[in-house]
């Protein structure tokens, strides 16, 4: 089954509190964990994200595109990256999420992937 592990940080000061050496180690460990998950067949895709200030919010209403500055929600929690994994079940996904190095600094939200049901196209048209 597919699970999306969303990496949230409690606040944006998380990184400024880390020393340069600690940041370096975190980077090495994060990339190392991705490699490990790839080797164990669990990794589908992993990516860190640029800070929320870089986000643009896109909506289409009445055929008009609007683009506004992000982030979407004013919360203390920020989305910092994601890892899409293949795991046997929810507890297997939790085990993998617990191994993400950033789990020690933030919170990993584990969400099972929803398979959109395929509807008969003939009736849709």
């Amino acid at each position, binding site marked *: 089954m597919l699970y999306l592990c969303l990496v949230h940080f409690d606040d944006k000061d998380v990184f400024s509190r880390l020393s340069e050496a600690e940041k370096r180690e975190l980077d090495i460990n994060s990339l190392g964990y991705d490699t490990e998950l790839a080797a164990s067949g669990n990794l589908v895709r992993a990516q860190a994200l640029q800070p929320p200030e870089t986000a643009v919010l896109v909506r289409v209403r009445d055929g008009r595109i609007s683009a506004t500055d992000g982030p979407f929600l004013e919360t203390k929690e920020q989305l910092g990256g994601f890892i899409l994994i293949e795991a046997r079940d929810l507890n297997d996904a939790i085990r993998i999420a*617990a191994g993400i190095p950033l789990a020690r600094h933030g919170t990993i939200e584990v969400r099972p992937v929803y398979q959109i049901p395929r509807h008969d196209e003939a009736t849709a048209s």
Partner: protein
Amino acid sequence: MTSQASIEAVWRTESRRVLATLIRLLRDFDRAEEALNDAFLAAAEQWPRQGIPANPRAWLVSAGRFKAIDRIRRKARFDVVAAELALEEEAQMPPEAETIADDQLRLIFVCCHPEVPADARIAMTLRETCGLTTEEIAAAFLARPTTIAQRIVRAKNRIRDLELPYEVPEPQDLAERLDAVLRTIYLIFNEGYAASHGDSLLRADLCAEAIRLARLLIALLADPDAEVEGLLALMLLQHSRRDARTDAAGDVVLIADQDRRLWDRAEIAEGVALVGRLMAGRELTAYGIEAAIAAQHAVAAAPQATNWGEIVRLYDLLLRADASPIVSLNRAVAIAMRDGPEIGLAEIDAIRQGGVLGEFRYLHAARADLLRRLGRNEEARAAYVAALELTHQAAEQRFLEGRLRELSLPSP
């Protein structure tokens, strides 16, 4: 040629055994699960080229252990304990056949450890020993997967924090520890047999898992145990009626109205044979006596052929082994069948005055039935209403509502 299908077949038969051994070798559930995953990944790579090894289980255990040591080594510069563990594990010899059997027992005993909360024992046993996924367990218990997942996480933390030993209990502790295991198996069975919530009365998969677990336990234990065999016999005899207990619409069919041709003869034969052996043995256990009662029903060719005298005698015996009000209630129903509803009703009312079963739906349902048979319709109706209020299970609700409707009809 080794196909994907044959590796999956090995997963089904071997993965839980390999996991059990890896937990012992690596002393950690999560690390073992990771290693199990790695071992099967290696198998998927190597077996198609090299063929399935002669002993796939041993191959998987050593592949898993090798991969785990490899991981630990890579992390070892951060973690002194892990480094020590890696060195120590390297010195260990490959596992023998009997240690693998013991590992499965160790796994069952740790999942059902009295220090693990009872609801977590069920989830742990079904996931770690039977190989069900968290989502499957949640579906079977009509719980949310997140609830089951958290139970399992907490149970594993508890096992780690309390350093619960991964071992088969010493002979002096075996009876008590086995008791917790059997209770867990029986709870799994009961949830399948008479689901407490939801739309359908039966979830036969859980019953089948419980029966499989009891068989596994019997195969693994060094000495035959009357209690485990009694539980197996009881579950087989109850399970044998599964196809007759509900009709096509999923409604309850009482034992007296069941089509006995639908009862599973093979399970009855096995259960009855076990009961015969157990009742001839020196040690009578509560499960064994309950199985003997179930056997009396199973061997009766028709409801009126049921030997209620023998059933009451067995309940008397059971009361001595397990003096619970529920046993008294069942005994009262058997007495009603032997001596008539009036005498049975007096027995039930005596239990009711004891006060403990006031919230037990089957007490009210049994009382209602006897009152109905005595023609005391007003009182019967009140008792059915009381039973209905305590019932959260759709098929049982429909049954009680049907009885209530019948009572509301004018007498012919």
